């Protein structure tokens, strides 16, 4: 689970499977958007960070692995096309957007430290003394607050609903005081800001998208084929069971030749892709009656057909 402040919402709770993502990204680029896109899927979370229309960072995190850059974009596209994800877009200031990047890609110095067991003030002092750049992420069950540092100096505070770095620590400190609050310490080394390339410029976004669309299409076809095969197998099973029932009933009433008559008339059933149902058996019953008249009387045939219809009804009433 990636813990991030929500920022200023631009769009929330959008199904990314219904969006042409390359087009959407291009629009954000054209609009010089600054902020981030958060994709939540059952398989993981994807984050795309924009700074003044440049896609400066992407991350896809699952419980087992973290993908970055093109791999993250491709995986996000792949998951989005499954159609059961959620997309939220938040606007941020340019500086904060970069700080989010630092937060996501920084080195984890401490993880999940219980704030009841740690002296937050001495931790802040240490950040200052060691001239660290990075982020303290303070979170409780319901709230999250971030304190960004650069070279030991606090850049500001960020919390749920804020669009920019704030100068007061009130909210952050109030989160720290909540029951069960924890802190992560992430640091960045060197000046990476200048080295960030625009991923939309260096990556073939449309190509990645098309590849994902192709894969998804292939998967869907495979699923459909598998479903079709399952359906065919089930249908075959239903036919076999029905035939076996008819053969047994015919054997009881007409003997060996009755079984042969059932086999013959069952073979002649023309289903044309329709699954076997009572309606399709009407012709079978008629033909069997006609043929059975040569070896048995109407009362015996009627008795046999009644048993067959009763058995078939219970066999075929399923989907």
């Amino acid at each position, binding site marked *: 689970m990636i813990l991030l402040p929500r920022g200023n919402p631009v769009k929330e709770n959008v199904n990314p499977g219904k969006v042409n993502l390359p087009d959407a990204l291009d629009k954000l680029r054209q609009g010089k958007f600054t902020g981030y896109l958060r994709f939540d899927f059952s398989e993981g979370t994807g984050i795309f960070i924009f700074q003044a229309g440049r896609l400066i960072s992407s991350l896809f995190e699952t419980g087992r692995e973290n993908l970055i850059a093109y791999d993250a974009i491709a995986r996000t596209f792949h998951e989005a096309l499954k159609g059961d994800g959620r997309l939220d877009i938040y606007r941020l200031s340019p500086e904060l957007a970069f700080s989010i990047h630092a937060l996501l890609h920084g080195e984890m110095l401490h993880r999940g430290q219980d704030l009841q067991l740690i002296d937050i003030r001495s931790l802040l002092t240490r950040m200052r003394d060691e001239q660290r750049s990075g982020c303290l992420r303070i979170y409780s069950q319901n709230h999250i607050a971030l304190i960004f540092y650069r070279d030991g100096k606090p850049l500001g505070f960020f919390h749920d609903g804020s669009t920019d770095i704030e100068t007061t620590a009130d909210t952050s400190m109030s989160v720290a005081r909540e029951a069960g609050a924890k802190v992560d310490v992430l640091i960045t080394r060197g000046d990476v800001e200048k080295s960030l390339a625009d991923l939309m410029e260096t990556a073939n976004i449309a190509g990645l998208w098309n590849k994902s669309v192709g894969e998804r299409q292939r998967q869907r076809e495979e699923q459909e084929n598998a479903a079709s095969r399952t359906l065919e197998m089930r249908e075959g099973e239903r036919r076999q069971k029905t035939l076996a029932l008819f053969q047994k009933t015919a054997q009881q009433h007409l*003997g060996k030749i009755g079984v042969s008559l059932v086999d013959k008339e069952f073979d002649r059933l023309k289903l044309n892709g329709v699954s076997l149902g009572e309606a399709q058996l009407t012709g079978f019953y008629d033909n069997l009656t006609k043929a059975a*008249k*040569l*070896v048995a*009387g109407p009362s*015996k045939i009627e008795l046999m057909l009644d048993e067959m219809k009763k058995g078939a009804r219970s066999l075929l009433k399923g989907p």
Partner: protein
Amino acid sequence: MEQFHLVLAVFWLIAGGVAFYFSIGNARVWTSIAVGFFLILLGEIIPGALPILPGLDNPYILAMGHIIGTIAILVMSHGFQEYYVFTRTLDFEGSKLFVYLSVAGVIIASLVFLLINPAPGPEVRRVIRIVENTNWVFLSLINIDLIRKIYLNVKDTPISKGFIAFMVVFACIFLWKGSQLYIDVYDLENKKDLINYTISYFTNLGGNLLASISVGATFIYLAKLLR
């Protein structure tokens, strides 16, 4: 003896009536068989079962009786062949009307054939009767074997025992028609003092009586089985 012939006529009337009724009310494949047995009635009564009937001395009527008898065994043999084919392939075709019309057509054609030729005298009628009885004798034997095969194919169906009854019917017919053929071939009508004639004569009468009874009984039994 006239009374015996009267009894025979009554039995054949019953047998023929039952057979014809059976042909109407049952599956198409029974039509040829039942119509064949019904034709025995016509073939038997016309030539001699009822001497009181008018036209007994008419050579055309007498000859026609033998021809209808021949058609009877051919039609019913065809019916049993159809039934056997059905038990092997489960296929059957045709319509009852077609069977009735075909039989009627063959009878009419035979009558026309007789009418456009000289009147059939006793010698011609004897030849026609030999032809008729030869057909009956050999086709009875063939039919017994065919019915045995049909029985084996349908022995666990409700109708199966009916085919055993048909085997008995053809055994009776074999005795009836075989003895008549023997009398005709050896011209025993003119050697009545021979024991061969006496045996053949009574075998003929007995076979005829048993055949008429067994035909009627078999169709009644079949009707019961096919209820």
